[in-house]
């Protein structure tokens, strides 16, 4: 029986047999995936490819930017006047608050200096705009127009005018990918402004909702509580608003059902701030802690565990 070949490339110079070629490329793909996912080894390849890709991303972003520019420069006079008036009023109010804050900041710095802990306050910021590019409909990621060339680094905190926005997940030469706090893979340590309860806010995949899965029934959280970043983990600066508790349901026996609404405008922001700050020092350095434990052992007692039961379970 005669069988037709499926390989219809030219006979001369056709390269390796089709199946062998396929298997080689497939093996390379699997190798790349493993290297990327497990060992984070191929950032250089990704960066080289991203240079080729960059003009495409710019091309997609360009029409939106151009429309913005055109509507901005041909806006009618009365609207501009109105906008100007509103902005002036806001500026006056903000300045008024700022005067009070200057005093408070000075006081805060003095107090922190007394505790020899001035860390966790944003020191340098860089404004970055979000490129109008869709990455994946099922993950909350955005692309910024600043990258390694501007000093952006992995895990850098990203804020907008109203609160914490996310953190940098990938850095390319001139762009950076940011994972939003609402992404299902993101979690951030928070603290209630009112009661001081510490917990973790986890993204849900819904841009208007964070979930707080590790809150016990008896912990002091109410609807309307403002959740601030704690600065633990060293990724985010401390004391910035993250979310406002929107729902507390104490139904189960151990954990309450708590939801919060992010204060940052995750779906509307066009421009965000990249933040540099000094990571907070470890409150109890390892050496000192070991000594305390040893002292406690010498005294014939077990050192008290610091972990509350709420953090231990929950999965």
């Amino acid at each position, binding site marked *: 029986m005669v069988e037709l070949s499926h390989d*219809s490339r030219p006979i001369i110079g056709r390269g390796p047999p*089709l199946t062998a070629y*396929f298997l080689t490329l*497939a093996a390379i793909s699997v190798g*790349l995936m493993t290297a990327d996912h497990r060992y984070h080894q191929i950032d250089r390849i990704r960066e080289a490819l991203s240079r080729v*890709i960059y003009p495409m991303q710019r091309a*997609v972003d360009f029409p939106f930017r151009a429309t913005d520019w055109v509507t901005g420069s041909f806006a009618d006079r009365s609207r501009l006047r109105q906008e100007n008036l509103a902005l002036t009023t806001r500026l006056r109010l903000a300045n008024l608050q700022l005067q009070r804050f200057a005093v408070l900041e000075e006081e805060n710095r003095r107090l922190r200096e007394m505790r020899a802990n001035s860390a966790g306050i944003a020191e340098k910021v860089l404004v970055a705009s979000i490129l109008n590019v869709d990455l*994946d409909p*099922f993950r909350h990621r955005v692309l910024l127009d600043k990258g390694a060339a501007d000093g952006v680094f992995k895990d850098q905190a990203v804020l907008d005018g109203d609160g914490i926005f996310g953190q940098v997940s990938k850095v390319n030469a001139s762009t950076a990918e940011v994972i939003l706090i609402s992404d299902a*893979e993101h979690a951030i340590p928070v603290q209630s402004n009112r009661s001081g309860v510490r917990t973790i806010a986890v993204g849900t995949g819904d841009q208007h909702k964070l979930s707080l899965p590790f809150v016990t029934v008896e912990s002091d959280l109410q609807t309307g509580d403002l959740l601030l970043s704690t600065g633990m983990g060293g990724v985010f600066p401390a004391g910035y608003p993250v979310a406002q508790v929107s729902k507390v349901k104490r139904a189960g026996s151990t954990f309450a059902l708590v939801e919060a609404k992010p204060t940052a405008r995750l779906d509307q922001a066009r421009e965000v701030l990249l933040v540099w700050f000094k990571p907070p020092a470890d409150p109890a350095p390892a050496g000192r802690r070991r000594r305390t434990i040893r002292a406690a052992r010498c005294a014939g007692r077990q050192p008290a565990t610091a972990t509350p039961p709420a953090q231990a379970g929950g999965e």
Partner: protein
Amino acid sequence: MFARRLLYWISMAAGLVLAIVPLPGWLDPVRPDLALLAMIYFVLTSPRIAGLGYAWLSGLFLDVLRGMVLGQHALGFLVVGYLTHKLQLRMRMFPIVQQAVIVMLLLGLYHFLMFWIDGLTGHGFTGWVRWLPVLSGALLWPLVVALGDSLTRRSS
């Protein structure tokens, strides 16, 4: 020949650009994989020029564009390209509707692979919405063929 090659690279770039153009929220999950459809079309009509390397490379660029694990879309494109290559003698004989059905199967396989790798790397999203591009892609296939035919006729 050169014009034909240029056309392939340009349509690859166009497919990739259309993969990241912002769409209104409800339309975003339906977005068909135009880069993949273009690749299938070219492998089908001119397997001598558009081969597996072409398929693999367009997948790799898509990975970088979307910030996925490097190699994920590349593997998907490669598998679809290989199967198309194997099936092309038969597929070229098929009427357009039957072709669209085969394309739907290929797209389904592709999205299953993506789903699987997503699960392995921990990005699993399990909603049924995920499978909409399979349908939209198959529905768009006749249009892709019409557009591709008119373009290649002009360039050759």
